[in-house]
């Protein structure tokens, strides 16, 4: 208590210097938080967008499916399982899918395509597939021989809405699959790859076509928060029979995207590192001045019986107090700013907006309000405060009281 009080009084001996130092920590923390919040927000948004079209955050397959993606490695849909999964508050949606290949032909044109049997309702909710339609309309029911096709594919096959495509493929257990499907709508999808290769059809229609009644190749799981990935994976694994099923995260299924984010954030860490490096100098300078100008006083305190390590401890407290003050204010201001921009999102404009929209992303700067960001910055500052106090502390431990008193 006494030392806390002493440290507190000491830091205000030079009010202006302390305030300047506190302010520098404040701005650094605020900048770092805002920066992390935006970059994390952009990543989270990107991940969310990508996984909602593709893999979901997590996917359940029959064991072995990922290595050999064939309809023969499908599994039977299980109402009970779906219910159990949806009981987990972290899980927001399930997207059952039957993913297969087929040869599509229209008139004299033929092309290999990916056929995605989907649940029209959940896809609409998760990734607003219906909004990607540029011609025609979205599925009206779940059990019709109707399809949606990517606009690139439509061009290549030279088809338009209400034309009928023929699909031929191999069904479950080598049965033959063939059928005629009416094009309900044409989609413009963000990924050019998907756009020129994909055909969506209602799940039941695809199950029927492939002779795979009630079977799925994957059950995609959407989460409320990007950061719940690993914990949710474990929760899902505890719900299912892991001998029969495999659970994969988007990171496992799309390692390139994960690596891209990792590499990109490494750059951000460097920027924040430089920021903290700069304020470290200010903080260090303040600490040095605070200790050196009190050299004589330290000598006297040692003479009256105060141990050097207690003196070093007081200086450490002073360092922590100055930096934590700036840090806590920075965190508070950071929370305010993040809150403000989450409530009133910043919209991109101009060409950046078009790029975003082309890829099917909302043209909004997302701010992540993840608590981790705030805790990390506070911890960094705390560690800095301790590290920077090491040198003055070391100086105190080596102090010769006589020299100090005579100084």
């Amino acid at each position, binding site marked *: 208590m*006494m030392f806390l009080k*002493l440290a507190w*009084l*000491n830091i*205000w*001996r030079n009010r202006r210097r302390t305030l300047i130092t506190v302010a520098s920590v404040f701005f650094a923390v605020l900048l770092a938080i805002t920066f992390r919040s935006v970059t994390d927000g952009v990543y989270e948004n990107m991940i969310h967008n990508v996984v909602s079209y593709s893999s979901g955050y997590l996917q359940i397959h029959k064991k072995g499916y990922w290595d050999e993606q064939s309809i023969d490695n499908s599994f039977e849909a299980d109402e009970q399982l779906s219910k159990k999964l949806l009981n987990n508050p972290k899980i927001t949606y399930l997207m059952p899918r039957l993913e297969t290949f087929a040869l599509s032909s229209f008139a004299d044109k033929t092309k290999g395509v990916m056929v995605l049997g989907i649940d029209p309702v959940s896809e609409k909710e998760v990734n607003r597939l219906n909004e990607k339609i540029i011609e025609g309309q979205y599925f009206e029911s779940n059990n019709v021989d109707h399809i949606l096709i990517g606009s690139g594919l439509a061009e290549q096959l030279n088809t338009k809405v209400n034309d009928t495509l023929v699909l031929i493929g191999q069904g479950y257990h080598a049965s033959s699959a063939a059928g005629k499907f009416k094009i309900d709508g044409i989609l413009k999808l963000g990924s050019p790859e998907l756009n020129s290769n994909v055909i969506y059809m209602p799940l039941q229609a695809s199950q029927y076509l492939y002779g795979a009644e009630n079977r799925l190749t994957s059950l995609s799981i959407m989460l409320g928060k990007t950061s719940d990935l690993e914990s949710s994976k474990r929760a899902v694994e505890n719900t299912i029979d892991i001998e029969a099923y495999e659970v994969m995260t988007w990171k496992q299924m799309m390692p390139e995207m994960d690596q891209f984010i990792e590499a990109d954030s490494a750059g951000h860490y460097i920027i924040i590192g430089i920021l903290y490096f700069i304020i470290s100098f200010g903080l260090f300078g303040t600490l040095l001045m605070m200790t050196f100008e009190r050299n*004589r*006083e330290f000598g*006297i*305190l*040692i*003479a*009256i*019986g*105060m*141990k*050097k390590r*207690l003196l070093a401890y007081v200086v450490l407290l002073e360092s922590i107090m100055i930096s934590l003050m700036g840090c806590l204010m920075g965190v508070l201001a950071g929370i305010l700013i993040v809150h403000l921009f989450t409530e009133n999102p910043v919209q991109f404009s101009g060409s950046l907006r078009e790029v975003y929209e082309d890829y099917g992303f909302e043209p909004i700067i997302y701010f992540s309000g993840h608590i981790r960001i705030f805790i990390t910055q506070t911890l960094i500052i705390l560690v800095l405060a301790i590290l920077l106090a090491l040198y003055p502390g070391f100086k105190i431990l080596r102090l*010769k*009281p*006589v020299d100090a*008193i005579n100084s």
Partner: protein
Amino acid sequence: MGKTIIDAHNVSKTYKETMVPVKALQDVHLHIEEGEFVALVGPSGSGKSTLLNMIGGLDEPTSGTVFVDGVEITKLSENKMIDFRLQNIGFVFQSFNLIPVLTSRENIGFVLQLQKVPKKDREKRVLELLREVGLEEKVNSRPGELSGGQQQRVAVARALASKPKIILADEPTANLDSKSAGNLMDIMAKLNQEEKITFLFSTHDQRVIEKARRVITLVDGKVDSDVVQTPT
């Protein structure tokens, strides 16, 4: 014969860091008994501060031994020495003895807190000490609000706080006008009489020397004379 409180044998101190080594103390013998009131005098550079620092364990002699209250302090580790000072030796320096951000009460209480004295006893003792140096009304003043003489009196009160065996004071009156100096000496003499605390103080001031009951004169790092006198 009273009990020996300070016993220095053959104490020499040579500063070797300088271009020409300085022999600050040469074979000094010193024997002081409990309850003495001793002035250490001598020309500037004669080694008064050096000797006080050796006795207080703030610095180590180049050779020789120092006993304080029977403990060979020249053998104590640094931390043990600091603890020994906390319990047995009070220090008063020429000026700026106090922690500027703390009040008189807190400055004196600080030593007691280092000694882990419970809060209740602390409060009582602080007031008692301030009364003894005649500064009860300045309990809540910071050093900056006190005159030089008052600051020195608080410093003496702080030195007394830990109930030390001896108080070492290096030119405690050097920065004071003669009235404050006389006042401080009277307080120290009274504490010496009433509480039997041993005082060893260095000074250049003739009027301060006159208050002492024993005067040790150093010249060139050696004891030149050691006389007992009747204080005026």
